[in-house]
């Protein structure tokens, strides 16, 4: 059982495929439920898409460091990048009761992440944006 796994990816949306496979392998190694794996895949997808699309909008290569670690009954996720300081958690919550013509496409991803994870925190230190997420394994 690998209780911790790390991956470094580039700022390219093609890397999402590699992240999916990496989450699947960790799920298999640790016998995680399909619901937990879905929450992990969705969270990485949404947060990494934001970083790749908006944090690093140019073609210059940058790295994003991601990791998963099982700590007791919790699964901890860490996502670090060196883009300009940006806290995605300050994004406005989408109005999910609004009619279609008033809907905006932005902000949906972070809403998903908040819904499927048990906690989401943002820090900025040593020139890095750091997102720390926790998913409780027992509740699912």
């Amino acid at each position, binding site marked *: 059982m690998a209780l911790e796994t790390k991956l470094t990816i580039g700022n390219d*949306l*093609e890397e*999402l*495929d590699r992240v*999916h*496979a990496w989450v699947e392998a960790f799920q298999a190694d640790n016998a995680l439920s*399909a*619901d937990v794996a*879905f929450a992990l*895949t*969705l969270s990485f*997808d*949404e947060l990494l*898409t934001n970083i*790749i*699309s908006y944090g690093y909008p140019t073609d210059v290569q940058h790295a994003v460091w991601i990791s998963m670690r099982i700590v007791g009954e919790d699964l901890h996720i860490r996502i670090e990048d060196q883009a300009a300081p940006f806290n995605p958690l300050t994004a406005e919550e*989408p109005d*999910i*009761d609004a*009619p*279609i*013509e008033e*809907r905006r*496409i932005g902000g*949906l*991803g972070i*809403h*998903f992440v908040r*819904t499927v994870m048990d906690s989401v925190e943002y820090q900025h230190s040593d020139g890095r944006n750091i997102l720390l997420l926790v998913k409780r394994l027992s509740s699912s």
Partner: protein
Amino acid sequence: MNDFKVGIRHMDTVTVFDLKGYLDAHTAPDLEQAFLSAIDGRKYNLVVNFRDLAYISSAGLGVLMQFIEDVRKNEGDIKLSNMSPRVFNVFDLLGFPMLYEIYAEERDALEKFRNNVTHPPYQKPDTGE
């Protein structure tokens, strides 16, 4: 690996999109292209069949939102069918069942078009305020 594919079928006046695999920010442009080709051909009666879709992120929902107004303005609709519980959950989290008709089976969506039932105008639920 995590491939995504869109198949297109024409059923009478309805264009059906069969989605397969992983729909995320990387693959969403393929779906966007499929919608564009239908709309360029003035096809506005659209059904999206999710039977073989394993996964959808907000980028996939964004594509549906991008085209729905244009399609309804042309008296068409985008109806959705055959979602797995997990994919339905993603739509549900954002209140999409109020905005789109979602059917258990594709034939029910096709039937709705055949009977020429247009999308009901949006009504805010009565919250008693």
